[in-house]
């Protein structure tokens, strides 16, 4: 036997950071476990009962001690909190130059779609050295896209885009797991992420995508679904122009604003009455049930391609559509389509 491994492969830029924080908490935990264990064992020996009628000393307590063992652990805990929160903040902010991938979970498989139009099932090819942003959703129940070698995961929630990002650092084949229980073949909903050198990745990309890029497929859908009837580039149509809107804030009918990102676009297609741009009547039919998750992603890529500057900058805190609730307090940013 080669011994029992203690760590999974470290294949993303997060891996060493998460491992370092983990080892820090392991060290703190080991210290307190050993300290208290040694103390109680020592007291057990030192103060063992020697006569049947012996009793312990009468001691009420000690305020300085109570304060010491409340405050010192609190301070140590704050170090963990700050360190962990900092790392988490980074994990929630994909860099602007991220490569975009769409992932859909369904009972019991993972489907991936690259911007170039390549599609994969239970396999995902990514290059090293480049941040990858995955927008995850589900077609049925909850799932969770988990890459242990990258030390990150995110739930796949039906009806929402959930963002995940990482920068692969080490070529190889690593596990993809579904980490949220999803029924019969939950443990079969696994796959492999194949991290490649950039050149090999380019070769791999060139081998796929016979049906055109996602944006091209989206453009075709845009025509087929007759979106062009209302969404005229001139802005004179019954729906707003979709040119150069991505990444910008738009004013809505109820006076609030929304930033146009994947989450907002998704909601506006599937639940078109939810947040209508100011000055337009809610005429648009809902496309819920009429369009597949893959088609929807393609359509969104097409709309994004109509905003070339935004595509160059890409989003910051993804997807940052922040609906403003009726009470005027900003509701949760991030997760896009909410009802």
């Amino acid at each position, binding site marked *: 036997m080669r011994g*029992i*491994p203690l760590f*999974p492969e470290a294949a993303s830029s997060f891996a060493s*950071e998460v491992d370092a924080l*983990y080892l820090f*908490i392991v060290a*703190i*935990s080991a210290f307190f*476990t050993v300290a*208290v*264990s040694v*103390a109680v064992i020592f*007291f*057990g020996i030192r*103060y063992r*009962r*020697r006569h*049947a009628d*012996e*009793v*312990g*000393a009468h*001691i*009420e*307590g000690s305020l300085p001690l*109570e304060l010491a*063992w409340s405050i010192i652990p*609190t301070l140590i*805990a704050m170090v*963990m*909190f700050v360190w*962990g*929160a900092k*790392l*988490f903040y980074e*994990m*929630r902010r994909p860099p602007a130059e991220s490569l975009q991938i769409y992932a859909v979970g369904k009972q019991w498989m993972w489907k991936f779609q690259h911007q170039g139009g390549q599609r994969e099932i239970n396999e995902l090819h990514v290059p090293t050295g480049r941040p990858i942003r995955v927008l995850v959703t589900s077609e*049925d*129940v*909850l799932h*969770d896209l*988990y890459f242990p070698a990258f*030390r990150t*995961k995110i739930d796949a*929630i*039906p009806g929402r885009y959930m963002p995940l990002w990482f920068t692969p650092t080490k070529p190889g084949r690593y*596990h993809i*797991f579904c*980490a949220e*229980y999803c029924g*019969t*073949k*939950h*443990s079969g909903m*696994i796959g492999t992420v194949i991290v490649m050198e950039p050149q090999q990745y380019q070769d791999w990309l060139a081998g796929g995508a016979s049906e055109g890029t996602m944006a091209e497929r989206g453009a075709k859908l845009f025509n087929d679904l007759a979106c062009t009837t209302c969404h005229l580039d001139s802005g004179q149509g019954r729906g707003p122009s979709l040119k150069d809107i991505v990444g910008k804030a738009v004013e809505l009918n109820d006076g609030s604003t929304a930033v146009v990102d994947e989450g907002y676009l998704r909601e506006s297609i599937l639940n078109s009455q939810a947040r209508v741009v100011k000055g337009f009547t809610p005429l648009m039919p809902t496309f819920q049930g009429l369009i597949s998750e893959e088609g929807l992603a393609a359509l969104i890529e097409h709309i994004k391609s109509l905003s070339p500057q935004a595509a160059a900058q890409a989003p910051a*805190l993804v997807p940052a559509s922040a609906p403003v609730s009726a009470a005027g307090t900003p509701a949760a*940013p*991030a*997760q896009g389509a909410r*009802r």
Partner: protein
Amino acid sequence: METPVYPAHNYLSNGHGLKSWLLTKDHKRIAVLYLISISIFFLLGGLFAVGIRLELTTPDGDLFQPDTYNKFFTLHGVIMVFFFLIPSVPAVIGNFLIPPMIGAKDLAFPRINLLSWYLYVVGGLFTLFAIVAGGVDTGWTFYTPYSSASSSTNVTATALGVFIAGFSSILTGLNFIVTIHRMRAPGLHWFKLPLFIWAHYATSLIQVLGTPVVAITIVMIFVERAFGFGIFDPQRGGDPVLMQHLFWFYSHPAVYIMILPALGVISEIVSTFSRKRIFGYSFVAFSSLAIAVFGFIVWAHHMFVAGITTYAAMVFSFLSFSVAIPSAVKVFNWAATMHRGSLSFETPMLYVYGFFGLFLIGGLTGLFLATLGTDIHLHDTYFVVAHFHYIMVGGAIMGYLGGLHFWWPKMFGRMYSEFWSRISAILVFVGFNLTFFPQFVLGYMGMPRRYHMYPDEFQVLNVLSSAGASVLGIGYILPVLYFAYSLKKGEVAGNNPWGASGLEWRTQSPPLTENFVEVPTDIPEAYEYTPQVIREAKLV
């Protein structure tokens, strides 16, 4: 030392036959009814765990069908959480001992106490029906939309069982709160109360305030499944994450329903076997209340990857650390209590030592999950499974078993085999660590929970875990045997075999139905240990 005599008149001899038990209003008899019923459920939940550990000895799903395996871990969780752990210490030990510890004849509402037990049984029967009818496969967390729209198993019957058992828990909590406020012996003011009472008071607050929320959640799932309302299912306009908020708003505090009473037990045992007042009494007392209060504002740490915002996640991470501090304070105070005590190591104290080891590891591993940067990797892996077993099984069951061994002579008037009980305490500790420690490593390696099959590299640790579980199983079975044996053949215990200071030790063992011949009026400080106390216990 005189030889104690088993009292001819006691609560056990006051009435014979099934009817005298099933219609009893005596809190002690109701505690015994709970003891029997939760032991049956523990055995059942344990059998499902055996199935899980057997399946996981090999990477392939070769022993059970995937659906069968999924039902096993679901039923293991549902039974252990709702039908064993939540009622364990409060409904058995608390029910039996709160009145004599505060010098009362019974709980404030004896009939409601019996009603609680019946509700528990009816809830349990619904769950048993769900098992017989083919089981349920949603996980004990009933996450939507799987539970409401996808699973074709007996979700409704199981959820109804949990719903009904919830009312049992609410009524028990209500009964304890009123009892502790209104039924204390004259002169027994709050700061003379044993810490066991403080712990139960804090627990009861959670039961009364938290349980209705899970009941409402279950009704919503039922309404969605039965009538097609769109509450949680996004296909029907619902929000699946809302269910998680509601569920954890109860189920995180529920962890403290399981562990707080056990912490109360530990205070009693540490003090008795150190013959010393608990160090920092008021800090330990208030830490129970602090845990109960903070427990309500940390729920979303179960949802860091479930779509809560970055800032909400940070707030909940911060708050989660706040609940760790009062738990740490308790541990330090217990250790300090032993300093300059007069320590002896009968079985209850061995359980306390075991408890220290497991609760420390369980509590400290919670830090990895409160810390955002590490939780993202560890969430929904075996690390979480190991962590909550260390708390809920390591902490809570060590406390429960320690308490049972401590008060068994009071409850039944006879001693169990000291030899076998020490063996069992050691087996439980060793078996527990062998079972669950490897799971921390598995979790960091990335093995997700609720997996029927797994990649080959996880096998060594899984086999180790299954082997440990067999040792743990023996450790849990042994007490059933020597406790049963002690009921008839055990040495007569006498009023106060440990020389403990609480009021419950002043009355005979087993107590009279009324607990005391006369209500005690000379109330000492809590945990007053003087040579006088020891002499009166006739230990010298």
